């Protein structure tokens, strides 16, 4: 390890430092505030969308009493649509930030397939996950394997969910609504909107599977990798745990 222990002298102002070893580690600012704010808002919106969406497909047991006394399914749908707007507006803002933010803010929108080092990274990370490499490489932004998963399972499918979702929404809003004008073309591809419901439903499962793998990988990498993960998505700062060349 190149990061040598220091005495408390270099870290002034730490009250209870005692005899602890202190490491000097390189830190870099990666995820700008809009990216972080978006990530957590988006994660929350998707969680809400998945739960309410599931209930839209399979409603909870019937309530007794007068219809006028309840609005349960109405609320479930309302929450779905409210979260959907948050997701969609957030996604637009995120695309905007992809243009004006730092280079890492663009990572989820494209894959640099023309770069050999990127492909080498995909292979290396895949082998690391197959327990065939002793350790992963270090990356300032997303590692190439994560980026691939994010692009295919998150970015494309979120776009798909927004398009099919607003197309379904337009059915309630009416054929003169802006939703119908912007997204009605979906029904040229699938004239029976039952098919669109089903596809929207499949899309949910793809995103759920992404979230499962993503959260697992984030926790695992936080523990196993040579850099911080989850705190990076909170503070924006990435700390590397070693300073080695490779």
């Amino acid at each position, binding site marked *: 390890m190149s990061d040598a222990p220091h005495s408390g002298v270099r870290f002034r102002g730490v009250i209870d430092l005692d005899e602890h070893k202190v490491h000097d580690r390189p830190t870099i600012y990666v995820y700008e505030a809009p990216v972080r704010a978006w990530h957590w808002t988006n994660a929350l919106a998707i969680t809400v969308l998945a739960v309410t969406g599931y209930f839209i497909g399979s409603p909870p047991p019937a*309530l007794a009493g007068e219809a006028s006394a309840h*609005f349960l399914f*109405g609320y479930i749908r309302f929450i779905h649509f409210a979260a959907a707007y948050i997701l969609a507006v957030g996604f637009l803002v995120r695309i905007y930030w992809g243009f004006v933010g730092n280079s890492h803010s663009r990572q989820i929108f494209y894959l640099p397939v023309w770069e050999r080092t990127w492909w080498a990274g995909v292979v290396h990370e895949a082998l690391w996950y197959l327990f065939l490499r002793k350790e992963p490489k270090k990356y300032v932004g997303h590692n190439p394997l994560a980026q691939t998963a994010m692009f295919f399972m998150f970015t494309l499918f979120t776009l798909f969910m927004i398009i099919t979702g607003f197309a379904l929404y337009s059915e309630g809003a009416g*054929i003169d609504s802006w939703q119908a004008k912007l997204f009605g073309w979906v029904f040229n591809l699938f*004239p029976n909107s039952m098919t669109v419901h089903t596809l929207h439903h499949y899309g949910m499962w793809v995103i759920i599977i992404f979230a499962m793998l993503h959260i697992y990988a984030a926790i695992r990498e936080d523990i196993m990798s040579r850099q911080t993960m989850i705190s990076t998505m909170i503070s924006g700062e990435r700390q590397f745990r070693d300073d080695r060349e490779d």
Partner: protein
Amino acid sequence: MAIETFYDVIRRQGISRRSFVKFCNLTAASLGLGPLAATQMAEALETKPRTPVIWMHGLECTCCSESFIRSAHPLAKDIILSMLSLDYDDTIMAAAGHQAEAILEETKAKYKGQYILAVEGNPPLNEDGMFCIDGGKPFVEKLKWMAEDASAIIAWGACASWGCVQAAKPNPTQATPIDKVIKNKPIIKVPGCPPIAEVMTGVVTYITTFGRLPELDRHGRPKMFYSLRFHDKCNRRPHFDAGQYVEEWDDEGARKGYCLYKMGCKGPTTYNACSTVRWNNGVSFPIQSGHGCIGCSEDGFWDQGSFYDRLTGINAFGVELNADRIGATAAGVAGAAVVVHAAATVVKRLTSKTDA
């Protein structure tokens, strides 16, 4: 000879002017047009030459005709039928054989570019289209031949509009909707299996009186009847929003008339006028009588799995599994993979520690 007007025809049949005006008002109202339109309609029917309508049958079950002749307003039936039967409808006209064939030839020649071609059923294209052969010619040939000189085509029902059950996978006869065969004519789709009688008479009256198609939606359906879903005007809708559903056919909810969503009602994805116009003289419609909508006016309704399931699958999977079963299975596999991977990571870590 000047072509007689529609009004001449019905007066000759002994229908009073009073009844005629009533008919115009009723039809204008059912088309959602104002009182002015009733006057326009009356005037058009009195002064304009009658538009001939040829009604052909392809691969179908004749439920469209059955529905049509049961139109609520007794006059509507007489009026429209006189409009049609004077020309050609091979199932209900009096003429037969060569006489019937001659009507087609004559209409084609005499009213070139003016007549309406109403098609019930669709042409099967497999085996070089050698299906539905009468008068020695397969239907697909006759259809193309009559379509050549028609001013517009009405595609009656789910068959002509979408293909319907004869087009269900694997569609052995390759039954094909009209708009996939005739590309160069305006086509109005009036889907449903069958379409509602008043919707059919409304469409015919509109076209024959105004001489043009009504406003159509993106699928070529008349907006006046197909711009809302069944669900949008359903009388059980308050139960839908409240979260009150029939869970089984004989439960408390079924007796109380709760929403049929969980019983596979396709109202939320079906565009039709059932919940407003209703059936059989406005007596009832499926949901009023306690059965969910099966979505019979939608494309592919025959291939959407059970009529009684809310969640349907996509046929391509070849198995009867709905979206949640497939999704949950995939998520289960992913979850199991995560657990195994995490366990392997821990084991690997512990063993490599002891190595060191």
